[in-house]
């Protein structure tokens, strides 16, 4: 007798079934190389005896086992589908830099609410925004849009962390010293002004770009052999650099 069946959600059961069916098709395709007659599987259906359960959040099913009476019946039908139908019923794959909701640090309630609304990635959210839909309203205020936008920015920043290649001491046209930080993904958000602190004293950021940041130095910064530079590039990227002179 088999071990106790695991409970499942319809989506994951169908996913597993499709994976198995794909394996069958692959095997049959290999067989077709040497066999004069080969067959392909179409229109598979599975009538399942199941017991549904609801935990207040999700409906799960468990397949009936020997000796269990009174099960409900679910029929899963996997029909053949043409490439035209696939195009008509499948969402266009997300862009390369699309971020899945799972990768964003969101509370469970928001994630669940978004999933119920069919939102699974940042790209989905963008499309909803373009159609001028008020997510906050249709989710009964469960989705805090401002908070969500910040978390998305944070996740995006996490995928493009700042990287420092070189730090150099230099002087400008007026002979005033400045620190030149070169790297990648530095000040990538034009709406944020970076803030620099050198040796625990605020310093002026002269210019910034995604590859270069110039920090004005004055006597107040009291440069010594080892200097600590803390640079806040945006709300989600703070870095500390130790500069030896």
């Amino acid at each position: 007798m088999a071990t106790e069946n695991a409970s499942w959600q319809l989506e994951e059961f169908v996913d597993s079934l499709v994976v198995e069916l794909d394996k069958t098709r692959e095997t049959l395709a290999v067989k077709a190389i040497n066999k004069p007659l080969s067959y392909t599987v179409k229109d598979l259906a599975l009538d399942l005896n199941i017991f549904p359960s609801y935990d207040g959040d999700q409906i799960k099913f468990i397949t009936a086992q020997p000796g269990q009476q009174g099960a409900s019946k679910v029929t899963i039908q996997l029909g053949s589908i043409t490439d035209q139908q696939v195009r008509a019923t499948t969402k266009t794959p997300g862009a390369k830099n699309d971020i899945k909701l799972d990768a964003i640090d969101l509370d469970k309630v928001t994630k669940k609410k978004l999933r119920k609304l069919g939102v699974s990635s940042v790209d989905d959210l963008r499309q909803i925004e373009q159609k001028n839909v008020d997510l906050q309203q249709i989710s009964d205020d469960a989705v805090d849009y401002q908070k969500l936008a910040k978390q998305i920015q944070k996740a995006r920043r996490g995928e493009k962390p700042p990287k420092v290649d070189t730090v150099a001491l230099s002087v400008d046209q007026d002979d005033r010293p400045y620190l030149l930080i070169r790297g990648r993904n530095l000040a990538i958000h034009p709406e944020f002004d970076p803030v620099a602190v050198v040796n625990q004293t605020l310093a002026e950021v002269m210019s910034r770009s995604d590859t270069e940041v110039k920090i004005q130095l004055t006597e107040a910064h009291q440069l010594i052999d080892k200097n600590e530079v803390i640079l806040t590039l945006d709300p989600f990227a703070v870095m500390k650099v130790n500069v030896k002179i």
Partner: protein
Amino acid sequence: MIDEAFMPFAKIIERMLTLEGPLVDDEAGVRLYVSACEIESPVELDVVREEDGSLRIGSTPPLYYVDTSIRPSFHRLSFTATLVRDSDGD
């Protein structure tokens, strides 16, 4: 792990689809082949969750054919297998 009495779902379909052919009778001058086949069968299922969280479906045709005090739960599998024809129609 799926119970050893069961096999992955893909295998059960493959094994049901062992159609050989064509059938040839030289004397009668007849040559037959199966162009499509509909299979419907009761199956037992073993649905397990692997350590990585994925769901695996194990299946087997009925294991016993005798009436027992504990009756197995027979689910029903049905599918159609059709002949794959070459692009030239052979």
